[in-house]
C-alpha cells in the first residue's frame, strides 16, 4: 500500500518534499496510525506525535487526503488510495508532521479557560441541575487536537488575531456553565472584529472535528449572546452577522 508523506527536517533539508512509502498492510493494521508506526520502524527519521492511540489525547492531528483528522481513529479502509499525509495547515512546521502549536494554545489561554465564580463555594459541591449540566455536552469533550482551528481559512488569514474554533468552543463552554459568573467579562473579551467576528460560518471546523463537536454552533451561540446581553461595539459587524443569519 502506498502512502505519500510530507517530510521536512530543518537540520538536513533545505525544502520540504513528499516521500512515498510502500508498506505491507497486515490484518491487525486497522487505523492509519498502525501504518505510520510500521513506516517509522523502517525509517526512524519520520517524526510525528502520538500517545493514546484511541482518540482522546489529541496528539496526532494531521492532514489526511486533504482533510484534518486523527491518525489513530482514521480507518485505513475508509481512505482513498494512495493516502496522502501532510501536517495540519496554518501552523509552522517544526519537522515532518509535527507543527508548532504555540499560537493555538495562546488563543486557548486568551479566553480564560477556567471557571470564574465570585461567590464563595459551599463546603460540598455546588448544585447544578441535570439540564444545566447538559448544556456543557458537546463542549467540554474537546481534546485540543487543533484539527478544527487549522482547517479554518479565517485562522489561516489572521492566525495571531482570530481566536479560532477550538478557543471559541471553550469560551462558550464557560459562558453556558451555570456555575460561572463572568459572562459580561467573557463577552467583552471576545467583542472584537478579529477575535470573534472573523468567523464566517465556513463550517470546516465541525466537518473535521474527530470528537463530533461543532465549534461553529458554539460561535453562533456566542454571537447571539453578544447581541442579547448588550450592544456590540462593532455595529458593522452586527450587520454582517445579521446578513449571515438571514442567509441560512
Amino acid at each position, binding site marked *: 500500500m502506498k502512502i505519500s508523506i510530507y517530510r521536512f*527536517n*530543518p*537540520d*538536513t533539508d533545505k525544502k520540504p518534499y513528499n516521500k512515498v512509502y510502500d508498506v505491507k498492510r497486515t490484518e*491487525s493494521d*486497522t487505523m492509519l496510525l498502525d501504518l505510520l508506526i510500521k513506516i*517509522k*520502524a523502517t525509517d*526512524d*527519521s519520520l*517524526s*510525528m*506525535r*502520538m*500517545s*493514546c*492511540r*484511541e*482518540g*482522546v*489525547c*489529541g*496528539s496526532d492531528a494531521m492532514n489526511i487526503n486533504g482533510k484534518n483528522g486523527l491518525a489513530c*481513529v482514521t*480507518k485505513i479502509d475508509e481512505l482513498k488510495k494512495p493516502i496522502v499525509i501532510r501536517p495540519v495547515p496554518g501552523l509552522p512546521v*517544526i*519537522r*515532518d508532521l*509535527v507543527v*508548532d*502549536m504555540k499560537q493555538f*494554545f495562546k488563543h486557548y*489561554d486568551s479566553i*480564560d*479557560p*477556567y*471557571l470564574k*465564580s465570585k461567590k464563595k*463555594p459551599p*463546603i*460540598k*459541591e*455546588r*448544585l*447544578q*441541575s*441535570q439540564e444545566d*449540566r447538559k448544556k*456543557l455536552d458537546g463542549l*467540554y*469533550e474537546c*481534546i*485540543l487536537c487543533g484539527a478544527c482551528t487549522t482547517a479554518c481559512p479565517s485562522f489561516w488569514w489572521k492566525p495571531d488575531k482570530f481566536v479560532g474554533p477550538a478557543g471559541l468552543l471553550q469560551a462558550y463552554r*464557560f459562558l453556558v*456553565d451555570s*456555575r*460561572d459568573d463572568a459572562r459580561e467579562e467573557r463577552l467583552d473579551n471576545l467583542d472584537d472584529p478579529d477575535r470573534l467576528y472573523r468567523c464566517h460560518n465556513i463550517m470546516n471546523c465541525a466537518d473535521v472535528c474527530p470528537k463530533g463537536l461543532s465549534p461553529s454552533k458554539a460561535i453562533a451561540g456566542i454571537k447571539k449572546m453578544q447581541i442579547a446581553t448588550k450592544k456590540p461595539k462593532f455595529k458593522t459587524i452586527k450587520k454582517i452577522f445579521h446578513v449571515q443569519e438571514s442567509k441560512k
Partner: protein
Amino acid sequence: MVKHFEFDSIVVGGGGAGLRTSMQLAAAGERVAVISKVFPTRSHTVAAQGGIAAALANVSDDKWLWHMYDTIKGSDYLGDQDAIEHMCKNAAAAIYELEHMGMPFDRNTDGRIYQRPFGGMTKNFGESSISRTCAVADRTGHAMLHTLYQKNIELKTKFFIEWIGLDLIRDEDGDVLGLIALELQTGDLGIFHAKNTIFATGGAGRIFQASTNAFINTGDGLGMAARANISLEDMEFWQFHPTGILGAGVLVTEGVRGEGGYLINSNRERFMERYAPSAKDLASRDVVSRAITQEVIDGRGVGPNKDGVYLTLSHLGEELINEKLPGIREISIKFANVDPVKDPVPVVPTVHYMMGGIPTTLNGQVRDGVSQKEVNGFYAVGECACVSVHGANRLGSNSLLDLIVFGKAAGQHILDSSKNKKLKKLPKDVTKKTIDRLKKIDSKSSLENPREVGEELRATMQKHCGVFRFPQLLDEGLVKVNELKRRIRNLSIQDNSKVFNTARTEALELQNLIEVALATIASAKNREESRGAHSRADFPKRDDKSWLQHSLYNPKDGSLAYRPVKMKPLSVKSFPLKERVY
C-alpha cells in the same frame, strides 16, 4: 548547548498528579515549573474513563470508613492502612474541590454529583455494592485533567512542554538537586536546578504487549530513580484490567459493569457467578481477570482464536448507553467493529496499572533503600509512586483519587517544610553521564534497533509475567530480561538530527522500560505466594506469615529486601487480616 534553569520546585509530569501538585505550589506563590514530555492534556490521565471514588453519599448512605475497608480488602491487605486512611478520609474534600474548580461532573436529579457502582466498592464492610464512583460520563479523566490544567493556567504556572527528563541530579550526600532534561524541539539539554524535585511521571504499562496504556507510559520516573540507585517497591503487582478490547488493547471501563453490563463465555454463560457468587461481575479486578483467563484456558473463550470473552451491555438500552457510556460506544465501534447497543464486545484481560513504584511517605517524600530514609529534596506522586494505597490490587477509581490527594499532600509538605531551604551546589560534571548515554545512542557503533529490542521485551514480559505466573517461566524470563538489558545499553538509532527526534526519544524511553521490567520480574520471581494481582501457580495461596511485606527491589544489584505492611491506621482501629472472597 546546555541551558540552565533554577526553581524552588520542579514537577516532572503534567498528568493529574503533577498538575495537582503544581497547583498547590503555584497558588502559594512558589517558583514552580512543570516539565512534561507531552502537552499536559495529552498525559494519560486523559484516558481515564470510569470515575473517581469518594464516599459522598449522594446516592445512598456512605462512609469513608467503608471505602477504607474496601480499599484494604481490595489491596489483599498489602496496602498500608495509614496511607489508605489518609486517602479515603480526604476523598470527599478533594472531589468538592475539583467541582469548585469547574469539573463538569454528571449530576443526580437533586443537582448533586452523580456516582456509579464500581468493582470492590461496597456498603457496610462488604454487604453489597454501592455507588461511590463520581463520574463525568465515561470521560472522567479527561474532565479532571483539563480542569486541573485550566486551574494551572489561571495560576500562571510555568510550563516546559515537550521536554523529556533524562536523569536525576543527586549529589554525594544522596540529596536530589534537580533534573537533566532534553528539549524535543531543539535537541538542547537543560539543567533544572531545584530545591525540590517531584516526580509525577505516570505508569509504565508499555512493558507488556497488550496494554491499555498510551505509548508515552514508559516508566521514565522509575528508570531515572533506578539509575540514581533508588529502590522500587512492590513491582510484581501489575493490574490486568478484565476488559481491554480483544486485539486492540483499548480499555472498556469497569463503569460498563457498574451500570449493569456483564461478562459471558462462549456458552453464553454468566460465568462470574461461579467465581464470585456475591459481587459477580463487580468483584475486584484481579479476581475477574483470573476468571476470564481460566475460562479461556478451559476452552470457553470467544473470538477467532478463542482467547477472549464477551462483555454484553445491549440490555442497558441505547438511551442509557448514549448518556452514560458514549465514549465506550464510540470506542467499540471504532476498535472492535461492534455497536454495543446491538452486540457484545470481545474483551480480554489487558495490562493496565502499576501498583508498585517509587516508595514514598504519606507526604510524597521518597524513601530509599532498606533503611527507608527520606531522600532530601525528592518527592513522587501518582502512578509512579507507591505510598502504598493500592497494595497488591488497586480498586478501580481509586487511582484518580490517589493523584489528587497525594499531589496536594506533597505540595503542602513542600510549602510547610522548605521555607528556609537553600539551593545546594550542583555536583561537578553533572551532565557527563547523560551526555555519554546520548552519544552512545547516536554513535551507530552497535546494531541494536530500539524497535526490535522493545518488541522482544514486551513479548517476553507478556509470556513470562502475565495473569498467572509459573516458576520456570519466571526463571527463564529473568535471564532473558537481563540479557535484553545488556542489549539495551547498546541501542543505536539511524537518525541523529537534533530537532524533534522521536527515534531518540523512543530509545531513551526503552532504557527506562527495561529498568521497570527487570524490577517487575525479579520481584515476581522472589515472592512465593499469591496475593492480589500476583498469582503464582506454584504458590496458589496468600501467605501472611511470610509475605505480609512490601518488596523493595534494589536496582544496583537486583537484590530484594522487604518491609512490613503498616497495619496501623492513623486514627481508627486496624482492619484485621481476613480471607478475601467476593
